[in-house]
């Protein structure tokens, strides 16, 4: 393919791909160099204890927008998930259990954020595995970027003042579940929470 281009306009064609190749190589090297100073398993600590970024996103089931600020004054559990994510399935029953336990409390809201997914697959997933709380779609990955999500599942606990109190990476199973329910959400709802 390159050869054909060269035959038609030897000098211009040759120069074009050569420059593109060089630019590409240098771009890559610079990108890698910058990447070296990041740490992939590093979670920005600033996010816990700071105000939760605002969310405006379409509801998965109803034609309406959900905003985070409408829940101000409530404890919000924000769970990022996707139908293609294996570990999400592992924690799903526990999420349902959390909602069952606190769902009656008017000061508690659990919100699922469907991440990088297809709408029909997301719905199918909830139908198969059960659902008892509200979900929104993260259409452009904007919410995930705002929250610094780099993989699913991730779960955020936001207090009544809209401050992020905890960030959980990975599935809520075993001890994590106990900690989240008894050590975090319950004290927050009862107003007995110390700093977390």
């Amino acid at each position, binding site marked *: *393919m390159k050869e054909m281009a060269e035959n038609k306009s030897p000098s211009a064609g040759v120069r074009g791909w050569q420059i593109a190749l060089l630019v590409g190589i240098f771009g890559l090297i610079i990108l890698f160099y910058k990447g070296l100073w990041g740490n992939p398993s590093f979670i920005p600590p600033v996010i816990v204890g700071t105000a939760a970024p605002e969310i405006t996103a379409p509801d998965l089931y109803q034609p309406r927008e959900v905003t985070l600020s409408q829940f101000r004054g409530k404890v919000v559990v924000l769970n990022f998930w*996707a139908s293609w994510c294996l570990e999400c399935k592992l924690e799903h*029953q526990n999420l349902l259990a959390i909602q069952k336990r606190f769902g009656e409390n008017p000061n508690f809201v659990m919100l699922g954020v469907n991440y990088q997914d297809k709408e029909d697959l997301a719905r199918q997933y909830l139908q198969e595995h059960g659902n008892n709380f509200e979900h929104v779609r993260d259409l452009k990955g904007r919410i995930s*970027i705002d929250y610094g999500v780099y993989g699913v599942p991730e779960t955020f606990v936001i207090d009544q003042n809209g401050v992020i109190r905890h960030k959980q990476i990975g599935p809520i199973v075993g001890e994590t579940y106990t900690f989240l329910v008894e050590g975090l959400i319950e004290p927050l709802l009862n107003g007995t929470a110390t700093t977390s």
Partner: protein
Amino acid sequence: MIIELGHFAVITALVLAVLGIVSPIVGLKRRDAVWVEVGRQAVTLNFVLISVGMLAMIYAYLTHDYSVKYVYATSNTKLSIFYKIAGLWGGHEGSLLLWAWVLALFCMMAVHIHWKTQPAVMPYLISIESVVLTGFLLLTLFLSNPFERIFPVPADGKDLNPLLQDPAMVLHPPFLYLGYVGLSIPFSFAMAALFSGRLGEEWIKATQKWTLAAWLFLTIGILMGGYWAYYELGWGGYWGWDPVENAAFMPWLVATAFLHSVMVQETRKMFKVWNLFLIILAFSLSLIGTFLVRSGILSSVHSFATDPGRGLFILGFVAFMLLLSFGTLILRSAKLKSQIEMDSVISREAVFLFNNLFFLVALITVFVGTLYPLLVEALQFKKVSVGPPYYNTVFMPVALGLVFLMGIGPYIPWRKASAQNLKDLFLMPSLVALGGLVFFLAVGIRHSYALAGLTVVCFVAVAIFRDFAKISSFWAKREQVGRLQGFLTAYKKNPRRLSGILTHIGVLVMIIGIIFSTIYQTEKILIMKPGDEVGLGSYRLKLIRLYGAQGVNWEAQEGLFNVYKGEALIAQLRPQKRFYTVSQTPTTETAIHQVLMGHVFVTIPEVSPDGTWARVRALHNPLVLWVWYGGGIMGIGVILNILRKTRLKVTAARPQAAAPEGAVSLPRQAREEVLQHRSNRWQSFLNAVRPGRKEV
């Protein structure tokens, strides 16, 4: 002491590797064969020295010498001998030593095999391979030294990562290295061609089998990784688009494209720059893959230690190699204009062009997906990840296109196909595929990718079968024998083509396996108590009881499951939630029962502390074995391809001087020729390099 001996041997190897870069070049400049011979001996000696280093490390593992820091970090007295040795590549330091060792081995083999047939490019090859080896030895010795000692000496080792304590996983990294490093030989030949100006088809022919072997190793490595993920990680899937998986997949994609496009250069002398570009790209991606994996700049299931210093060094090395190789290509490209233009879009060369385009699109997809998180982070200081939906969206159509081309490429004529050609070749496969489509719809297959995939597989299978039938009967008639004999004759006449097509058959089998095991997978995730049952397609799974179990270096909670088909008990499965006591790591042990060509697959990712319930993940994966059977058939095809006899033409720089060597076609004569060649190797080298370089 033994460790110090090994350490010293590897340090000496570094010195010799530097010598191996310089002396062949000096030899070329001074037209003095002695310098080149020094380079050649350095290559051999390097292999011996690095082997000494490897053996010293293995000795330390077997004698439980935990005063060696790396042995301490990756081994334990309780491990079996197999895993003790495997500890060598169970971490960063040892993997790099293994890399260097394989590189030295391959380089020695290449020099030995090609010394007499490719004398003119050998100095370049030695020099370039030595550059790569120097890079890896520097990294090994200065930034991640496996020979380092610690004091006080720990009583016992920290244990090999439990996830690695598995046969498939133990062999997965070495096979990938064999593949990565194997690509360095065709790469070096390509670079040698660029430097020496011998840019004809020689380097392509000389490196055919090297590329095939490297491709085979990469394929085995990737499949083993997939199998490991399938049952050891308990994914129940074999491919997750993990960045580290992608790092191995990218060179594989380019190597596959290269294996196809070289045929165009061999037959039609086209795609010259393109082939050089592809092989340089393939090896560069091996190096980039090493960088991505070893610097830990991407988050992945493969958790490797991160160390910016180490990453910076590898980056420097990768940058140097990229600029050296692509830079040379750019400078030399003006000389490489192809004289031949494509005659028609309906021709075999056009099919190869599309094949390459598709592979490149696939590569760009994976490349962008893998690096996008890095780019976002660099620009916005935020973290993102790219999920499977992104890859699948682009990948599925490209894969379908590639499979379709598999049914056309081998059969369509070179240059230009006529309408009559096309009708003869593809009318019947198209009709059968159409019939297949109707059949699949009738049996209730509705998923669009499954339908498209199976229809395309039909088309290709019929095209292949028709071709087999045609050539079999052709040779049967001509030799007056039966059809099967005719087929064997056809194979003998053209083993390359037929073994290639066998590889294609393997691809078809694998694709059927992938379609059924992903689209028609049944998955249930639920909490079960003893006595509970769950339906799984036409199977039923009943949890009988949960209890404790113990191994040499682990404790576990085990579940006993009965698998029923109808009312009949067909199997008992015992998945475990295992806990490795030394390293304090939990793992999920999968239990699998084979049904037809598929699997009933059970894991218990979570068991309640009091043992009254378990979280169960149960899967029925129909035809999943076809994925690996397909891989096996692909492998056999490639092995047959590698084993076929080839006559390597002796090509010296001066055709006149090489005149007697034109007669090397007879084996006996060839042997004599070689013997003679050896005796005056020096003289023949001088003949080869002394006259002015010839531009091909």
